[in-house]
């Protein structure tokens, strides 16, 4: 290539690139030329990724109840809220394993109510029927449960032993089941209860800078953990 032709080619390339950049700048549908600041990104037109609830997909291991307590709770849940009129029951709603999570996270008195209550129910079943509660038929389970059913007003469950556990567990099993996705997937008819749908408040400007142990809510995305050594500090 002659030197003259080369110079012309370079000039025309540079001109074309400039025109192209100008077109890009005027065309909002095209991305800005690289390099872009890494903080550019999400905007009001960004599609929201569709996700599933984890407890519809994934399994969890028992972390609070023993295997035996869980077997008792499974049967108790099935007896107190079985599948009815096309609605799923407590077992289909994964309520027992959810309660393992909820009660296991709860303060000690609530945990005691459950673990003590399940152990008592198993012992009562062995004493009366010489069989584990998990193996009882509906009628036998009813013989053990019905004497302890009470009516009560909110915030005031019965306080007598056994009745406390049975009535609190019944209330929790119903709420956890009715507020589950699978219950909600089957339309409620008549007086059948529906999953609660309400205004959920996110943390409002939470205290994410608070010192350790101040009760602050940590951000859901953490920066890299603090290094053991001193980090240089300068404006970036």
């Amino acid at each position, binding site marked *: 290539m002659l030197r003259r032709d080369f110079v012309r080619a370079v000039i025309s390339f540079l001109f074309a690139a400039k025109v192209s950049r100008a077109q890009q700048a005027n065309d909002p549908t095209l991305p800005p030329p690289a390099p872009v600041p890494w903080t550019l990104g999400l905007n009001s037109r960004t599609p929201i990724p569709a996700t599933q*609830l984890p407890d519809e997909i994934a399994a969890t291991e028992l972390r609070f109840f023993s295997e035996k307590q869980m077997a008792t709770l499974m049967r108790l849940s099935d*007896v*107190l*809220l*079985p599948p*009815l*009129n096309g609605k799923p029951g407590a077992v289909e709603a994964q309520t027992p394993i*959810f309660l393992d999570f*909820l009660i296991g*996270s*709860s*303060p000690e008195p*609530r945990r005691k109510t459950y673990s003590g209550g399940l152990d008592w129910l198993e012992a009562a079943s062995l004493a009366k029927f010489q069989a584990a509660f998990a193996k009882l038929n509906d009628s036998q389970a009813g013989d053990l*449960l*019905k004497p302890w*059913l*009470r*009516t*009560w*007003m*909110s*915030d*005031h*469950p019965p306080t007598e032993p056994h009745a406390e556990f049975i*009535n609190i567990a*019944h*209330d*929790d099993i*119903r*709420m*956890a089941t009715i*507020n*589950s*996705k699978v219950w*909600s997937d089957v339309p409620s008819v*008549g*007086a*059948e*209860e529906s*999953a*609660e*749908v*309400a*205004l*959920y*408040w*996110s*943390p*409002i*400007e*939470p*205290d*994410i*800078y*608070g*010192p350790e142990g*101040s*009760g*602050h809510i940590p951000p859901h995305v953490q920066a890299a953990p603090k290094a053991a050594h001193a980090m240089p500090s300068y404006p970036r």
Partner: protein
Amino acid sequence: MRNETYDVLIIGSGHSGGMAAKVLTEAGIRCLMLNAGPVADVLRDAARKPAYELPYRGFRPPGRIEHVFQSNEFNANVWVDEEEVPYTFDPGQPYNWVRVRLFGGRSLFWSRQSFRLSDYEFKGKSHDGFGEDWPISYADLAPYYSRVERIFRVAGALDGPPQMPDGSFILDDSRWSGSMQRFIAAAKPRNIPVCKQRRALGVDGLASSVNLLLPDAGRTGNLTSIADAVVREITVDSNTGLPNGCNFVDRLSRREMSVKARVVVLAAGTLESTRLLLNSNLANSSGLVGRYLTDQIYGAGVVCSVPEARGRKPEDAARGMLMGGTAIVPRFRNIDTKSDKFLRGYAFNVSSITGAVAPRNFAAYGAELQRKLDEYYGSGFQMTLMGEVLSRYENHVRIDKDKVDAWDIPVLRIETKYTDNEFNMAQDAVDVGCELAEAAGFEVLSKNPAPNPPGYSIHEIGTCRMGNDPKQSVLNPWCQSHDHKNLFVVDGAAFTSGGWQNPTMTILALSMRASEYLAGEMSKQNI
């Protein structure tokens, strides 16, 4: 460095602080308002969700706000976190301190029941010999109640007996449903009055400081507000000994800051105002700051069913005539007669329920329970108690020297308990409720005579009571400190005693009255 001195520093932005800001700024007074928490924006901070999308399926997050029975997973983030701002108490005598620090405070979420006190409360000692009379009477406050009711658009009927004075209402002339008529007929021969409920309608479904009071203050150009300002202590001029501002810590950055003002108005809510006074060692020559904490007993009541409403479909017109509506039964004990079981009295909130009856009202499970729920749907009728708690010296708060909050501010220790007077009152309410239900032909499904823990009603009052004698009270009849003429407490702390009535209208009327007095004194240069 800024060194501006405001005319008035208002600490707190709820009903009482909002009213003070409105009155003072409209009188041309420059006010600075501090609020301990952030501004809530429902579009930014909230969204409708089904419970199954939340980690705990709608259950209250375990262990976080154990003493807020009103909380659930949907609203868990609007209450004060008990780990961030703790308080202490004897484990055998728990206290439910229910707090909101968002801008507007608890005025954002209150139930909006709107009653006046009467001279059965203001002059209770004169009536039955217990406690102390207020230094003001109903006649002193009545004009302020009327103005507050017009701002808050209180709906009600002019049907109150002397113990429930009528007001400037948007008149409720709705017809009673059939079940309510039967209840009224059962109550009448027993001299128990049944009246229309009284409720603030507000504007756009909200009756709060942030939409009914603060916008007026803002329009004057005289209000400056700071959010997330956690006040550490009120400061004092070393020459005069008078309060002259406060030190606060920014909630998020933890920067320590201070502001100056000629007058300090405390409106942080009964116990936070008192905590500030105690942490600042102010206004306590009587030794009574923190004393005479009281509230109302809640939690007791009776749930019934109206048999004729059962088994009907929701679209059944006959059920529509029979069920629905609410009523208030104002105090009827110890008015013309004298109970030998307790002093003072209680009210009933009465509801005729057109929706579901809660499963806990039936001793059944599984298919049998579902049959009951189907049958009883739309037949519920309930009476719940609101009772006066006697104002006692020993029920008190003080600073717990061993514990601080997230900003190193010493916390409150709360020592209060109910006595036989309250327990007997609750039992009487359940007995009367069952008697009325039986007389009306209703079936009693469940009942409960046990009150919720103190504090549950979110009606804590007292701890800086007003009076004429500086040795027997913290504030004078204008909510002004006996000790410091430029210090006012305009929230529920000023109450000398309580009543069966929700206190909000009285808090608003007292704040309006105190603020107008303050504006007058400032214009006369007395303060």
